[in-house]
């Protein structure tokens, strides 16, 4: 079972108290973008087996959005961090590196 800690209210709960909100740190392309950009924004997702970054919402709780870094295979959670964050914090990236040297996810490593 996936156990997450909400950085907004501090609750550590199991996944049914939360709602998954898709891939994290997506750059949005809207009006004015070309077809390739819009296509990649809408459809081209990482979907990895292993290290992944996602958005979650504490829907049966404080209601806030946040980010989570986890392993999609083992359900190990490397950390959660506020929604108002543009990239994974160094501390979390270091933690992943310790476990998975050489990991890469989009432009992050």
């Amino acid at each position, binding site marked *: 079972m996936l156990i997450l800690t909400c950085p*907004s*209210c*501090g*609750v550590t*709960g*199991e996944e*049914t*108290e939360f709602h998954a909100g898709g891939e994290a740190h997506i750059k949005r392309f809207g009006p004015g973008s070309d077809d390739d950009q819009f296509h990649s924004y809408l459809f081209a997702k990482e979907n990895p087996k292993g290290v992944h970054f996602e958005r979650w919402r504490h*829907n*049966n*709780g*404080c*209601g*806030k959005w946040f980010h989570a870094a986890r392993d999609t295979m083992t359900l190990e959670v490397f950390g959660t961090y506020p929604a108002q964050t543009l990239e994974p914090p160094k501390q979390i990236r270091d933690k992943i590196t310790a476990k998975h040297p050489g990991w890469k996810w989009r432009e992050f490593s």
Partner: protein
Amino acid sequence: MSDAVSALNGATYNGFVTVTELGLRGMITLRGDLSSAGVKNAAIGVTGVDMPGQRQVHTVKESGLAWMSPDELLVMTPYAEVGDKLAQIDKLLKGKHYLAVNVSDARAMFRIEGAGVREVMAKLCPVDMAPDAFTPGVFRRTRMAQIPAAIWMPSDDAVQIICFRSVADYAFGLLKDAAEPGSEVGLFA
């Protein structure tokens, strides 16, 4: 004026704990900067209880303050006073960035009482109800079976539950079922 009644009009059930729908209760959602003096003064001023910390609740009789999220408090008052209390908040926070709404008729409140209350809640919520983990004063928003709920323990043998009014009957059914005589697990006995 219409004759206001609560969702289940004070329904009760006697299982291995007692389940009571508490009738009409005044509830105001107050959102704003909880660290600001203005919001704190308004919240404390209308309830007479201390400001709750993260995931905490303070109550005296039917009045109280519960921490809902980093920018939201639940202000509890007697039902008859909720209009006055809301006006008082609006006056105290005039010109400030805040939101205060009377949500009394959108909510239902239950109380369960008895030695087995921790077990009843543990059957319904993904929350550690062990005595050292969930203590009186803790306010927890969570999931009760399929509905959102907020729970706290006014004392060691009672739990109060707030849910949406529209699902009050479902909540009452859940609590009755979990409190049915003969279904004791004895987890925290």
